[in-house]
Every structure is written in C-alpha cells, then in structure tokens.
C-alpha cells in the first residue's frame, strides 16, 4: 500500500508478522481472531512491540507509535459522553447524547454515537472517536461475514465475545473503545426478514422528511410518541401478541424464558477486556447521573412510552450535570422486528421547558401557601382569645 511504502513500514513488517508474534508453544490461545477468515485481504496490524523496538533504527511508524507511552500522549484523550442501553419487556432502548469533546473544546455538537450494525443490533460507542468508528466498522464486517457463512445472525453475546476477542491483542495500548451492544436475539423467518427490510426503507424515508415527534409539556417526564407508520402499528400489535406482558415480580423468570433463545440483550464491551451482560448499562462521564435516573425508574414491565421517556430523562439529567455531555439526544428502540430510530431532539428545548414547569410549580406553591396562611390567621385569632381567656 502506498502509505506503507512512504512510511517505510514494510521493512519492519518481517519481525512482527502474526506468526512470530504468537509464540507457538502457547497452543491456539494467542491466534489472532483475524485468522478466522484466511481468505480475506484484511491484514491487521498487531500492537507494536515496545521492548524490541528500542534497538531498531527509528522509522516513521515506530517513532510515532512506540514512543507513545501512556504517560506521554500528544494530546489528552477524553471520554466525555453519556450513552445508555437497557432491556425491558418490549425490547431494548439505546440512547446517547451527541457531543464529541476534546479536553475543553466541543469538537462536534451533532456527532452520532449510536450506529446500527444490522437490522437487529445497534452499538453505543464511547471512548476515542476514531477507535470507535474503526472498530464499529470491523465489527459490522465480521458480523456480515458470519451471517453469510452461517446463514443466521450472530447473537448479541456472540458479537460481544467477538469484539472482545478482537480487542484483546490491543490491551495495554492506547486503544480506547467502550461499546454497548444493544440488540434482539432471535430466530428469524423469511417474513420477519422482509418486514425488517421494509421497515428500514420506510424509516429512512421518514427520517429524511424529519417529522418532529410531539412531546407533551404537562407530564414531568414527557410522554413521547415515536414516528409511527401504518405498517408498524400492525406489527407492533403482533409484537405484543408475541411478547407476554409480565408483572414486575416475575422479572427473573421472564428473563430466563427470554434468555434461552430470543429476546432483548444488552452487552458491554471495553477495550481493556471487560465484558458484561446486563439489564441496564450506561457508559461515559455522564453515566453515574444516568444510572441514578435509570435505577429509579426501570421496571421490566414498562411500556414503550415509559421506557423512551426514562431514557430521555436519564440522558437529559446527565447532560445537565456533566460538562462533557450535551447538545442532543439520540434514541433507538430495538424489537424483534428491528430497530426504529426516534428523531434527534435538542435538549436545550427540554431544559427551557423544565424551567417553565418549575416556575409554574413555584407560583402554585406560593399561592397555596398564601391561602393556607390566610386560613390559619382566621383560625388562629380564635385560639389566641381562648388562651387568654382560658
């Protein structure tokens, strides 16, 4: 490749080819996951060997890579974001803010942190933006290959394992990816496949028209309406027929019945190797604030509207308190029929609406208190007389 030639990279490739990087006596353990498909032209760069490069004449590649230890970065890597994902009886909600920051600067106020991988899987990314973009594309590629080879989709847990295995060789380097995979596992019939594709096409058309979904001002959390289409209404009725409505007491039981084959899944993968499956996952500098709201309001038996409102509220609160999160909120809802995207909403409006609501509440409380004081004065006079006379 041209860039490799310019950098003189090929000269040093001999010593760090995958065969010698992997000590043979370790067995199959250290085989890179990129050997899964030997026919591909995709050659991945193993992480630089810091100790063996000291004696080598510095090439352009090695000087930029190996001299970067965690203590001498050219610039501070910041991971300011709020992303969250949670499962409930009717699918998965994935939400994130849209601010991309670098130290004190907002690099992009309208970045997209939730990327669809395929029809039933989206990934919330946080960490270093470039790393996330790259690894998201790598994951999409590998999942598509799996689907073509095995004629079925890889499960969410499988995708998480795949991503975790691919990131493992880069542990200890500056790769920083914290991804939350949100999706629906399930066996698919041809009909659902077709309907998913139809939904995806219609969805794109809807997004381009950019209908703003209505948000009512009265309720504190705001009941939100998804941009709905006739087809989707019918399909959502089918979904409700498929998914049993459950009470909160049976959360564990239901999850175990779901956990067998199909159902909502959310899985967290981190570049330092942590891989977690759970019900509520939130990542980023704003995640503590989001967790507080989510833990309070989450129930397995939530309706879609409640879940969307909860996610919105969580991101809104996190963006309020966290300086590195803000601007807009993106929201995806994944069900057995695929993902649906809610229009991007500017949280500035929500903030002003909340202030108005607070002002109204304060006024009402003032009025009530004045009325109560007025009543007490009238009653109080009687008491004073009685004390004196008594």
């Amino acid at each position, binding site marked *: 490749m041209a860039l490799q030639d310019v950098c003189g990279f090929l000269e040093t490739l001999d010593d760090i080819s995958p065969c010698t990087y992997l000590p043979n006596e370790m067995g199959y353990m250290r085989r890179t996951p990129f050997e899964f498909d030997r026919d591909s032209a995709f050659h991945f760069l193993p992480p630089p060997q810091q100790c063996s490069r000291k004696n080598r004449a510095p090439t352009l590649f090695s000087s930029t890579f190996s001299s970067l230890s965690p203590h001498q970065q050219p610039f501070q890597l910041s991971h300011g974001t709020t992303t969250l994902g949670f499962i409930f009886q009717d699918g998965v909600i994935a939400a994130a803010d849209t601010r991309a920051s670098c130290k004190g600067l907002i690099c992009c106020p309208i970045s997209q942190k939730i990327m669809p991988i395929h029809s039933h899987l989206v990934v919330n990314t946080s960490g270093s933006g470039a790393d996330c973009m790259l690894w998201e594309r790598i994951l999409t590629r590998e999942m598509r290959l799996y689907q073509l080879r095995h004629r079925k989709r890889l499960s969410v847990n499988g995708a998480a394992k795949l991503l975790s295995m691919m990131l493992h060789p880069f542990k*200890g380097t500056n790769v920083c990816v914290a991804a939350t995979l949100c999706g629906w596992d399930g066996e698919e019939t041809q009909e659902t496949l077709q309907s998913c594709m139809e939904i995806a096409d219609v969805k794109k058309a809807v997004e381009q028209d950019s209908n703003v979904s209505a948000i009512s001002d009265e309720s504190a959390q705001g009941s939100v309406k998804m941009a709905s289409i006739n087809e989707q209404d019918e399909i959502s009725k089918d979904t409700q027929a498929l998914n049993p409505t459950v009470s909160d007491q049976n959360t564990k039981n239901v999850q175990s019945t779901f956990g067998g084959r199909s159902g909502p899944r959310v899985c967290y993968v*981190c570049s330092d190797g942590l891989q*977690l499956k759970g019900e509520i996952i939130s990542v980023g500098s704003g995640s503590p604030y989001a967790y507080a709201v989510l833990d309070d309001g989450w129930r397995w038996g939530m309706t879609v509207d409640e879940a969307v409102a909860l996610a919105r509220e969580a991101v809104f609160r996190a963006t309020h308190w966290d300086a590195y999160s803000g601007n807009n909120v993106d929201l995806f809802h994944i069900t057995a029929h695929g993902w649906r995207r809610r229009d991007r909403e500017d949280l500035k409006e929500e903030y002003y609406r909340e202030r108005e609501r607070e002002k109204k509440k304060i006024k009402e409380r003032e009025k009530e208190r004045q009325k109560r004081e007025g009543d007490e004065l009238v009653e109080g006079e009687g008491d004073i007389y009685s004390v004196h006379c008594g």
Partner: protein
Amino acid sequence: MEYLIGIQGPDFVLVAADNVAASSIIQMKHDYDKMFKLSEKILLLCVGEAGDTVQFAEYIQKNVQLYKMRNGYELSPAAAANFTRKNLADYLRSRTPYHVNLLLAGYDEADGPGLYYMDYLSALAKAPFAAHGYGAFLTLSILDRYYRPGDSALSLIRLNKRFILNLPSFTVRLIDKDGIHDMEKLPVAPGG
C-alpha cells in the same frame, strides 16, 4: 475491591466470591459470577484485571474440557491446578502477562477435597483455607483462629457469613463427592 475465599472441610470444599463487576467508581453489575466450572467437580475462581480474568479463566476452562474430550476422563484438581500454574508462569515473562489471582477448588475421588491458592506471579500452594483481595487481610486471621480441620459444612457456612465485608452479596458454592452445589446467594446481614 474483589474478594474470594475458600475453605476446605473433611469431605468438601466451600468457596465464595463477591458479585461485583466494577468499572472505576461505578458498580456495573451486582450479580456477576466469578466462578468458572472446569469440570463436574472443579471450580476456578478468578479475580484481577478486567479482561485478563475472563480470557485466562476461559482458556483454562476450554483446555480442561478439551482434555476430557480427547482422553475420555477428567483432569484431577491437582493436575488442573498445576496446568493452570504452568500457563500463568509461561505468560508471566512474555509481553502479555495475565494479572489474575486464582483459587482452584475441587474434589478428587482418590485424594478427596483440595483447595489451591494461586497468585498473579503463579505461586501455587495447596491450603486448607485461602482468600484473595483486601478482605483476605481480615479473614485469614479469623480463619486461623476458628478453623478446625474436621468442621462440618454448616459450621463453615456460618463462619463464612461472619466475615462478609462491605460488599453487597456473594455467590457461595460447595464441592463434594456429588459435584458442585449452589448455596444461597448471601446478601449482607447487618450485624452478621
């Protein structure tokens, strides 16, 4: 901080691990299982650096299962412990050492119950009781004081309940000649 404890009885081994999976200050999961089942009667408890624990433990787990598939019989706890130690030691001086602390607990038909303590420098020791984590500082001295080799399972479970630290809940499992049994998940009881 993560915590593991294992106690060997006359014909069983009792092990417990906390259930927290944390990422800096946030407790991301409070029902995370740190025990890996190597075979019907061997458990590997693994704590340490985030990705290393699962990677290493799963590697050992799959290799032990592969041995059974190839040879038709399972590795004994002692053999599994030494295999684990050898792998950990081999990686120690490589570019990618695994920073994991392990407890391996198993029941052998011939030798009886066994508890093996292994740390990240691949030091292996067979011990009647062992613990990892900050909690180990506290519990090892209590175990020294109260442990009797012939203790029954119930009394040891009670002993276990006493030293639950500031961690919300624990998974407790018992290994005896009938295999691995789940004891109830212990939440913290105020006042023990």
